[in-house]
């Protein structure tokens, strides 16, 4: 069964069938209805890949994330999907597991499959790699700031400012010893968060004891191990700031397993504000990252570039979204008003 069979049966030209499929607005309602009826009768479904070649588009955009198990990225993916669905686009979701080579492999695959657009989140790639992608005619939007990249369409939030706010909050609550559980150190986002922590300490005129920095995988298990290490110190920290909510959930388990209370014995603050952070007990104080919104805006920017058929000059947009401290119970504050408003 192919398009010619349908055309013959419907008594119209192949070009008309093609118009019904690809540009239905250019066909009269009566013809359209007749053709669709014949297609249904013959149980004909178009070959989408071939259709993509004809239209010079595949109806697919790709989203690359570093860790599909981290709810931050599922929320970004949801934002991208919300927009893509409205446009009848499908998403190719690729998980790099923080592996630069895996990311490069995926990108080669995208080029050979001629995807229509690409969103890279927390990417390892640099200027020349990105230019390489664009030179293949693939529109590109980035999520998450990479300081070395200039002049690209990008949606980002300020990790340093977020970590600064969280640390400042713990310092203001008067904790004498504050520890941080960070993800893999080589990741630029974690470096930025660490800068924020150090800045808050410096501003408060306090020295930040480096022994309280624990590095681990950005997973619940990582958080458990990190907290285990901190709780084994002779001088246990009074408060722990984890660089992600999933690390905080892990830390929560370990703290509870040791029969310690949160926040009375150990206060805890996370980062991300994923859905579960308002469900766990005690509810997690965390830095709210507008991740779903980042996905939405990145996808809208991407479609703007894709829609710009006449190649009009578009100034790359750098859209900064605010992160915000979301105060709940785990940090040990006594300020109900901030819970309501901030």
């Amino acid at each position, binding site marked *: 069964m192919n398009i010619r069979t349908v055309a013959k049966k419907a008594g119209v030209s192949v070009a008309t069938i093609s118009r019904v499929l690809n540009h239905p607005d250019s066909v009269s309602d009566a013809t359209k209805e007749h053709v669709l009826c014949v297609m249904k009768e013959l149980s004909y479904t178009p070959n989408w890949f071939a259709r993509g070649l004809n239209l010079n588009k595949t109806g697919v955009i790709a989203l690359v994330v570093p860790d599909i198990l981290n709810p931050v990225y599922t929320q970004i993916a949801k*934002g991208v999907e919300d927009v893509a669905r409205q446009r009848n686009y499908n998403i190719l979701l690729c998980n790099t597991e923080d592996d630069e080579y895996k990311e490069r492999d995926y990108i080669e695959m995208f080029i050979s499959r001629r995807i229509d657009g690409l969103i890279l989140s927390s990417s390892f790639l640099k200027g020349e790699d990105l230019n390489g992608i664009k030179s293949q005619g693939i529109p590109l939007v980035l999520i998450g700031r990479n300081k070395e990249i200039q002049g690209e369409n990008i949606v980002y939030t300020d990790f340093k400012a977020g970590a600064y706010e969280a640390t400042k909050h713990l310092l203001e609550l008067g904790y004498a010893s504050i520890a941080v559980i960070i993800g893999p150190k080589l990741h630029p986002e974690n470096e930025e968060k660490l800068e924020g922590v150090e800045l808050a300490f410096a501003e408060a005129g306090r020295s930040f004891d480096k022994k309280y920095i624990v590095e681990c995988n950005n997973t619940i298990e990582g958080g458990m191990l990190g907290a285990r290490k901190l709780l084994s110190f002779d001088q246990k920290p009074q408060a722990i700031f984890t660089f992600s909510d999933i690390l905080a959930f892990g830390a929560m388990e370990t703290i509870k397993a040791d029969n310690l209370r949160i926040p009375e014995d150990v206060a805890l603050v996370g980062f991300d504000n994923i859905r579960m952070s308002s469900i766990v007990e005690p509810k997690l104080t965390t830095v709210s990252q*507008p991740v779903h919104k980042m996905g939405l805006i990145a996808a809208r920017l991407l479609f703007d570039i894709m829609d710009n058929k006449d190649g009009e000059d578009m100034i790359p947009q750098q*859209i*900064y979204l*605010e992160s915000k401290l979301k105060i709940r119970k785990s940090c040990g504050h006594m300020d109900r008003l901030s819970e309501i408003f901030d």
Partner: protein
Amino acid sequence: MDLSVDFMGIKLKNPVIIAAGPWTRNGEMIKKAIQAGAGAVVTETILSELRPTNIRPRLTSNSSGGVQNIRLYSEIELDEWEDEIAIAKSSGGVVIANVLGHTPSEMAYIASRLEKFGADAIELGIASPHGGGIEVLASDSQKIYEITQKVSDSVKIPVMVKMSQGVTNIAKLARSVEKGGASAISAINTIRSILGVDINTGKPFLPTYGGYSGAPIRPIGLAAVATIAQATRLPVCGIGGIETFENVLEYIMLGASAVQIGTAVMLNGYEYINTILTDLSSWMEKNNIQSIDSIKGKALHSLKSFEEIEIEPLESNVYKKCLRESCKDCVSSCLYSAIHKNLQEVYVDPEKCTGCGLCISRCPDRNFRLILKV
């Protein structure tokens, strides 16, 4: 006699704009407001990401015409506003998009999309007293400047900034808006409120802090508009508790170029716009006022500093016969015990009266007036 006004470069057929709110939540409703005669309509606040909006219950009112609202923002996705604006403008009219983002680049991004979708102007909805932090976004002079500047640079259509009275120095903030390149200022947004508590259950009427609107906030809106009009050269759009054509005139005489109505439309329907406009034009005709512009700011000239107010030897005087035997409002509210009443006989003791003027507004029949002491 001409009701039309030029507001931030847009010709409006009359100065009555429908304010952002649940009553402008989609294209159809905006279209209805336009068809009912509104000079322009402002959309409900549009964000780049939807937030839960329809908390139940979310609206409550009191007997003084005040309304507390805890509905947050538009429940329609940013991109879907393309169709909504097309519907809104399908019979003509001016549509202003009220937008909210939390950083300059986010705000500029939303505004430029709405410009692309056909909005005639942008209103920055940065003054809502609920849904954000304890300090409204519009209370930081630097932030308000940066946001205004970025948005004004990013769109070609006029940008109006909606301001809040929940700030310490509205004049300073208005100057930041002017410096940022805005085309106009609208004021005021609703005021943070708790309308009341159900004393039987011990719970507030609505489950969180909300925005207070309606007649009770009008005096606050009038003062804010006068302040902004005196602090900047920007056109001002007066908002807050407008219920009648007289209220429209009050705002205009205090320096507004146009006004926005919200709560009155919510409580009385869109047809109410027509009542206000008809009354406004008959008043203008009766008083031989040719244009709105000719009375704009008229009352500002009579706003004085304390040292400029001349203290005249005025005293209260009863000039109409009291017809209410049992009414004692004048007597009980006289701070100087100067008013005495026996059935319908009302007497002001000139030795005690200091001319404070309270009895004039307390008397339901307006039987008092102030006269020069002889």
